[in-house]
């Protein structure tokens, strides 16, 4: 599918097959087309070209049938601030036409499951950001969706609140709910998701399981070090130098199968001086940098 707003391309030829029962991430920086992609999945945006099928149904033709079976947490919390979490959930449940009795039971269940009990009857305006986010997610679960779409579920949350949400998302996934989320946190995609699609400027640049993407595209380890361009040339001119490097300002990231060899090369060249550096496993962030073409490739 593609989506244009006037001359601006928000999504270009995005072609994804998302298997049921998995947790799938659309990963990318702000403006990459993640939200527009998500909106097309649940039919709130119409593709300029192409089509979307959810549960085997064309969303544009069967929006009601599709949306009855999915839940969406929008990027911004849309809550009725004057009402309590319980009242918000009831209002939302009615959009799904849940019978009042079943709705009542479901509301209680969600209040407990997302740890909202202590503030269940307090106006939403008085709740903290973490509470409000959990309530927004509770709203999207009120109809027991088979597919949950989460637009940046943990942006702006503190680490504790983020961990709690991650645990809940894992539980949902374990219980068989399919999940599609957007995020610009590489860590979130890596730790939570079975598969990721990396988006940049409206296009999907690569897609696969996080571990596989990393293994396919880059050596296993990375060394980060602050240095000048001269330092870099001095360290890596000898034959057999690692040729996968990215520079952002003063920061240089060097990829190699064994970080220790890179460190040793730097130390030797520095004449034993202990320059601060970080060695770590290669991660999705590196894949993103590589895939969007910002990796400096130099043959030695």
């Amino acid at each position, binding site marked *: 599918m593609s989506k244009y707003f006037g001359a601006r391309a928000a999504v270009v030829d995005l072609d994804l097959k998302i298997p049921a029962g998995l947790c799938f991430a659309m990963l990318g920086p702000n403006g990459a087309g993640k939200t527009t992609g998500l909106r097309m999945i649940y039919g*709130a*945006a119409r593709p300029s070209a192409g089509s979307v099928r959810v549960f085997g149904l064309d969303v544009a033709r069967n929006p*009601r049938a599709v*949306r009855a079976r999915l839940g969406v947490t929008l990027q911004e919390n849309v809550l009725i601030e004057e*009402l309590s979490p319980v009242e918000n959930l009831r209002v*939302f449940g009615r959009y799904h*036409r849940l019978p009042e009795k079943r709705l009542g039971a479901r509301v209680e269940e969600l209040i407990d499951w997302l740890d909202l009990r202590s503030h269940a009857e307090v106006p939403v305006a008085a709740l903290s950001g973490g509470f409000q986010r959990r309530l927004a997610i509770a*709203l999207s679960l009120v109809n027991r969706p088979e597919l949950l779409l989460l637009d940046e579920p943990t942006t702006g949350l503190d680490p504790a609140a983020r961990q709690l949400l991650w645990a809940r998302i894992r539980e949902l996934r374990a219980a068989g709910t399919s999940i599609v989320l957007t995020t610009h946190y590489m860590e979130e995609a890596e730790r939570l998701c079975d598969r990721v699609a990396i988006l940049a400027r409206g296009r999907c640049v690569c897609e696969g399981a996080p571990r596989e993407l990393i293994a396919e595209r880059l050596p296993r380890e990375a060394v980060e070090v602050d240095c000048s361009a001269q330092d870099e040339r001095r360290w890596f001119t000898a034959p057999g130098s690692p040729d996968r490097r990215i520079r952002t300002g003063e920061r240089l990231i060097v990829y190699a199968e064994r970080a220790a060899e890179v460190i040793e090369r730097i130390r030797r060249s520095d004449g034993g001086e202990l320059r601060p550096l970080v060695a770590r496993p290669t991660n999705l962030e590196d894949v993103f940098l590589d895939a969007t073409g910002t990796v400096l490739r130099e043959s030695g």
Partner: protein
Amino acid sequence: MNLSLPYAWSVWRRNATLYLRTWQWNLLPNFFEPVLYLTAIGIGLGAYVSRMDGQTYIEFLAPALVCVAAMNGASFEVTYNMFVRLNMRRTYDAMLTTPLSPDDVLAGEMLWALTRVCLYGGGFFAVAALFGLAPLPRSLAAVPLIPLTGLLFAAIGIVFTLHIVNIDLYSFYFTLFVTPLFLFSGVFFPLEERLPAGWLWLAEALPLLHPVRLARAIFTGRLGWIAVWDLAYMALVTPLLLGWALRKARRRLIA
């Protein structure tokens, strides 16, 4: 059309739930406004007016103010309140993550605006009746004009709301549209006596003129053929505007 009344009803219930929480702040100002006009102008200014069309001035004013109450009730709901739901609180974005269609959302909002119209218009009618200004039972025939006027002005306001992106433009809507209508639609004086004959046909375009003329004719029991034109105007213009609102809502809500 992709309209389901039970879904539209859930939109109505959302607004009603919120309204019940804050009704003290909403109900009173809107309700008192026409009552204030009635007393200040009807009793105050009216004391200097001997007879108006064969009635006391306050009797002349009362049926028109029923329609004004309906116009105001509709206008306030579908302007600022709806703008906030559409653009600021993103209420409709959230609704469209559920089985609700844009048609359901619009219908629910319309039903809700009509509910408030009936509260204000009906409330004012009751006050007028209490003061003996609505001759019973014949003035009861004017009660259906309350939702009809409300529907017309809700449609106008919704079309405006769906087209603007800046909430400040409502000051134009009220100062250049609603207030002039209020002043020049035959509410305070018979238009045909003060307007040069050559301009009278133009006044027929004013949407508030028609319910006001109908209401007054019903209150005084002097229904003439012009009532057919007044009804026809409302029966034609309202659906046209509703169709416009619907097309625009679909485009606004599903981008």
